[in-house]
């Protein structure tokens, strides 16, 4: 028994972080965030070279065949640097969707394309995850119509995977006839949402091979929730690190502000809230692969808990920076908004805690 990362995992996290630190200095991040699409071709290529695209794709389909814990480490690094790159939906949830509800042929056809970075799939869950907005899709005679709001990783996506209320999912091409995708820039300019309007669009694949489609859909949702929790972990850690550094530099009343107990206690509070979150995210990710009976419960709890801690850290770290924290000058707000996004997407804490109660059989769904 060992609760911790392997050497390889530690190395992977560090190298990814090094890469992102190098690629995303503040001026670059500011420029990329301007568009609000949550995508940059060069960054995407670079992440592919580091093996991110095929991280979860089984080796037989051209991926690295790694697990959810590895994916969570990647999400954490992306959150730490507020990277404008599709990940939670395009590279984790989509892969899980194919693996849990795609047939062998669909997996053979699509997983290699995901691993190669060619298929970038925006994914829409709507009601199944407690997202707000429109969620009314009809599949009639093999054609999909209706509206679905708030698809994640939808900016510059090549495809959309739209979940139906019954847990089946339809894959459609972004530019296909009958597909209108409206980019919605979110407050987090490093990740966009897309609203879909469909008028008789023809899916290129229908994922319906699970004998319990709703359960399969929930597993995909849980994978996404763990990723958003890990993303918040990274973003919050970044804000804490910067607050501590600032508290060590900034002088008021002839003293570095970190020497005031008020400031020290803010930093200590952030650390105390955040530190256990790391192990929680690790476990929640690990459980997705290895502890099926707890996977749903801990995924929702991790998402909810990180959202609560993230909100506190986001406020406190900004406060430590004083007026500087409220400006664009230090770019601290990129992580602040990352945390906002992670909280509001795929169901807020109330909804997640409800799902955790359902997962434990305390209440009916």
């Amino acid at each position, binding site marked *: 028994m060992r609760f911790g990362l392997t050497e390889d995992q530690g190395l992977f996290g560090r190298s990814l972080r090094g890469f992102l630190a190098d690629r995303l200095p503040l001026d670059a991040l500011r420029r990329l965030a301007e568009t609000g699409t949550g995508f940059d071709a060069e960054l995407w290529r670079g992440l592919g070279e580091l093996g991110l695209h095929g991280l979860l794709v089984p080796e037989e389909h051209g991926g690295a065949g790694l697990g959810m814990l590895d994916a969570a480490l990647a999400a954490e690094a992306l959150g730490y640097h507020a990277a404008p790159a599709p990940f939670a939906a395009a590279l984790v949830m989509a892969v899980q969707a194919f693996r849990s509800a795609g047939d062998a042929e669909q997996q053979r056809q699509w997983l290699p394309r995901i691993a190669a970075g060619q298929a970038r799939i925006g994914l829409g869950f709507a009601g199944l995850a407690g997202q707000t907005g*429109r969620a009314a899709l009809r599949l009639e005679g093999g054609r999909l119509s209706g509206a679905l709001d708030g698809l994640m990783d939808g900016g510059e996506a090549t495809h959309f995977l739209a979940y139906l209320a019954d847990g089946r999912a339809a894959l459609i091409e972004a530019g296909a006839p009958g597909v209108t995708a409206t980019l919605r820039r979110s407050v987090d300019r490093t990740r966009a949402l897309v609203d879909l309007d469909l008028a008789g669009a023809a899916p290129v694949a229908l994922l319906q091979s699970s004998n319990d489609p709703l359960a399969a859909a929930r597993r995909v949702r849980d994978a996404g929730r763990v990723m958003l929790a890990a993303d918040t972990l990274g973003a919050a850690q970044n804000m804490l690190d910067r607050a501590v550094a600032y508290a060590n530099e900034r002088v008021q009343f002839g003293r570095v502000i970190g020497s005031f107990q*008020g400031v020290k206690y803010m930093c200590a509070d952030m650390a105390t809230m955040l530190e256990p979150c790391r192990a929680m995210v690790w476990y929640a990710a690990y459980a997705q692969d290895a502890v099926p009976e707890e996977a749903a419960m801990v995924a929702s709890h991790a998402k909810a808990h990180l959202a609560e801690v993230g909100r506190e850290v986001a406020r406190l770290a900004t406060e430590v920076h004083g007026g500087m924290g409220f400006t*664009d000058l230090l770019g601290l707000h990129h992580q602040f908004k990352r945390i906002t*996004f992670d909280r509001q997407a795929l169901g807020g804490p109330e909804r997640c805690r409800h799902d955790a109660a359902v997962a434990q059989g305390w209440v009916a769904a």
Partner: protein
Amino acid sequence: MDLTLTPKHRALREEVDAFIAAHRDAAPRPGGGRKRPDRKALDWQALLLKHGYFARTIPREYGGFGAPHDVIELAIIADAFSRAGISPGIHNQGISMLVPTLLEVGTEEQKRRWIGPTIRGETIWCQGYSEPGSGSDLAAAQTRAAVEDGHFVINGQKIWTSSAHFADMMFLLCRTEPDKSKHAGLSYLLLPMSAPGIEVRPLRTMTGRAEFNETFFTDVRVPVDQIVMGRGDGWHVANVTLKYERMLLGDPNKLQQRLEATRRMMEQPGADGARLLDRAEWRDRLLRLQGEVIAARNHNMRLLTETAEGVDSGLGRFIVKYHGTMLAHRLASLALDVMGSTGLLYEPQGEVAEDDPATTWQIDYMYDIGLIIGGGSSNIQKNIIGERGLGLPREPKAAVPAGRN
């Protein structure tokens, strides 16, 4: 304690309700203190002033309505506007901070000259306090004003100056007596932003807009009589203004408006047809906040009464800014949570057009953090509460040199 409504009070309540019903279409959206008031806001302001729903107790000779101070009247008016979700008029740094400062310590001439145009929303003020090296340590301000042939000649830099890019005037804290001790060397000047030598450079905030600025002064000349109280009294005057600023930042009527707006959203059926208000966990969050807002409003009534009776509320007043800004943050937090993923959409319209609700709440949510910092951060408020309010000893002045720990 006597809150019985006299027939006069009841008549006022009916009158205000009738006014709102008749004129609500003329009202601009609530908020908007971060923009120059447009025609609609100015007309609305004029209408409110005429009816005595704004600046009610400010004497007529200064442009107010001149009613005697009556806490219940003020509460009736504030309550009617927040219940209806209608703008109660303009709240900006001039109206809520400088005007009461002048009423308290200004000269007759200053009151006659500045209060009228300021409360009408015509003259916009900005606050020149913070500098790159002195934020929390406000008394360390270095911006210098030397006296030369009947003028102050100002040199230096201010930062985080909200609204400076559209303000007409500034109230400025600067050092006029360099030989005196830190706190005794400051003065509080009034100067036009059009004065030669002032340069305003916008600073982008986390909202993506440039709501505040850096303000540079190079040999800016101001007649020596443009001072509030005397030379060396700046720290005292600055603190009078801060007192009102902190009341403004903790304003319970704003909290009430927020609460009502959130309740209205929670009454709307969601995508699944259910109302959030029907779900216990959501209702309880709202109710907890409602309880706190009720406490804040009752507390405010008590403070207003004490002020009217000439009592300094001390502790009761010191807690208002910290309490109110944290509560505002939690109200905005709930509003975002209520909106869920659709509440993430963010397209600020800039200075001209109105923002959509999701964008407005996101801006409020971020701005609330700014207000937790501005006007004296929460830590500074806690120091004041502990030291001045509760009589605890001051923090030891440990000598910790910069850059080390």
